[in-house]
């Protein structure tokens, strides 16, 4: 299954500038695309626009050539597993119940939950390294467990594409790596994965392509080495960085300290006390 978005523009009412301005992207089976960019650059808006959750001012999104508006939410959920950035549970469910809700697109309003659904949940939990937690209430999970349970919920209906909004937020380095490794495994199995992340360095090592957004516009797109260039990253994030290379060739971004930037003669954002009071 292929996802294709062309010239997406989204405007929020009452905001003069576009939240998303002419962004295009494609997602093929078996590849990981990472969307990176500073806070407020339109990453989450992009994900919601791709899923048809926002009215577009211009542009279109198509799944296998069919416009996303033409899909019912249930049809869409059956082929696209997605994870929003924020989520609060009003009434705490168990892990089993929570992940089973990911099968809604298969189950519909009335069909009973069968052994097949249970087995799918257990298998997906094992795949996400949270097996054995079925009966735990989700408000008792650690941040890492909860994120992996959420990923399991996005995966449990066996989607063909996975769109994740900062799934490694609040994860320690071990769990973060486990999640990226899982995404790589899933991509190898043929899933198309789009991940929004602030982890430039992990994105550079795991993603096939990066998409760099700034104030709603696409600044760069391509292989990590093409996108993560010193001058581009420094300008977009408003902070001087050095870009080195890890042994596998992936670019690694190192933000510079003020003294280091001054030494190398690079522009620095003004210190707070330098600004107008």
């Amino acid at each position, binding site marked *: 299954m292929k996802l294709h978005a062309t010239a997406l523009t989204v405007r929020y*009412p009452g905001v003069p500038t576009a939240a998303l301005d002419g962004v295009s992207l494609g997602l093929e089976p078996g590849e990981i695309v990472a969307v990176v960019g500073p806070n407020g650059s339109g990453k989450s808006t992009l994900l*919601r626009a791709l*899923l048809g*959750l926002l009215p577009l001012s211009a542009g279109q999104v198509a799944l296998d050539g069919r416009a996303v508006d033409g899909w*019912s*939410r*249930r049809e*869409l*959920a*059956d082929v696209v597993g*997605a*994870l*929003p950035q*924020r*989520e*609060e*549970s*009003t*009434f*705490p*469910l*168990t892990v089993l*119940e929570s992940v089973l*809700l*990911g099968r*809604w*697109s298969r*189950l*519909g*309003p*009335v069909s009973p939950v069968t052994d097949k659904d249970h087995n799918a949940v257990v298998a997906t939990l*094992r795949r996400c*390294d*949270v*097996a*054995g*937690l*079925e*009966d*735990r*209430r989700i*408000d*008792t999970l650690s941040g890492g*467990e909860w994120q*992996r349970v959420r990923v399991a*919920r*996005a995966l449990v209906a066996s989607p063909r594409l996975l769109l994740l909004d900062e799934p490694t937020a609040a994860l320690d380095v*071990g769990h973060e790596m486990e999640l990226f490794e899982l995404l790589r495994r899933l991509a190898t199995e043929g899933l198309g994965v789009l991940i929004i992340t602030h982890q430039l360095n992990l994105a550079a090592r795991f993603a096939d392509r990066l998409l760099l957004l700034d104030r709603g516009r696409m600044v760069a797109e391509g292989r990590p080495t093409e996108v993560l260039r010193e001058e581009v990253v420094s300008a977009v994030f408003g902070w001087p960085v050095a870009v080195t290379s*890890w*042994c596998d060739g992936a670019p690694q971004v190192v933000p510079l300290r003020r003294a280091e930037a001054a030494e190398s003669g690079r522009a620095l954002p003004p210190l707070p006390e330098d600004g107008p009071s």
Partner: protein
Amino acid sequence: MVVEVRGPVRPRPSASHVPPVLDPTSETGLFVTPRAAHRMRHALPALAVSALVVVVAALFVGPVLLSPANVIAALRDGAGQESAIIRSLRLPRILLAFGVGGALAVCGAALQAMVRNPLAEPWLLGLSGGAALGAVIGVVAGLPAGWSVSASATIGALAAVALVYRITAVAGRRLDPRVLLLAGVVVSAFAGAVTTALLAVADPFAFRAATVWLFGGFAGASWDAVVRFAVIATPLLALLWWLARALDLLALGEDTAAMLGADVDRTRRLVILTTSILTATTVSVAGTIGFVGLVVPHALRGVVGPLHRRLLPAVFLAGGAFTVLADAVARTVVRPAELPVGVITALVGVPLFAMLLRRSLA
């Protein structure tokens, strides 16, 4: 670049190696203990049996004291005064109380999921204010009690919801739960002010007649009312049960629900429409009865869990039984007079709610 790792890398214990702590003696409620899982599975049949027991027991209670033998005889054959009391007064009254209480509890549970707030209740969207105002206008205008006043209460309730819906549309945030809540509070306050003004100038007789609508009661129950209520309520309750899984998703939040396949706006619209008509129908037969829709879903979530396919039938049974009990108390405690049933549900509901709240926060 050379990365040196000193010593063997110890694998971190992963979740798959650590079984969850399942402590049956745990009182924290943090884990689903085997006892709790067992309780969840058997809760519905147990509730059904308890509800039946309550309904049967309520037949034996009333301002006229009847021996159990008399009640059973009255149920068997239709002759005599005792039979009339049981068959034409108590039985329809109990069935109506059960249906109304059950429907209010189901509406409360559905609305709590929709607005993602455990404090939501059926009267949330201005319904109670509107219903009370409609009834008081009907009473003050001298409409005959029964059908006409019940119709004006229903119209008042639905008009209030329509106004709430209209306010949210003007705010440009139609169906946004937070705006719905605010608009509901505002419309209720407005309707309350007009109701109070009307009652202040009404004659004492109208004032007394209006309090029945303000606090609810089943004194006017009849087989006609039972049938009228059942005809409207049954398909609406079935529709809410059909929406149960969509409600589960809605409780997770708008984006998550949509991403998992729920049509959020359509579900919200259906829930608002269904619960409004259902609640207005309860008003038309019994006035505004508070607390059932708030307390019962809250209490039952701890027993059967928050998933609505199990929760909705459970709260229907429990809400029904609770209201039948409250009505039994209402019609006997100051015999031969009657208290409005809403007074009893509040008197019992408030301490119950406080207790539940304390337990859930402990």
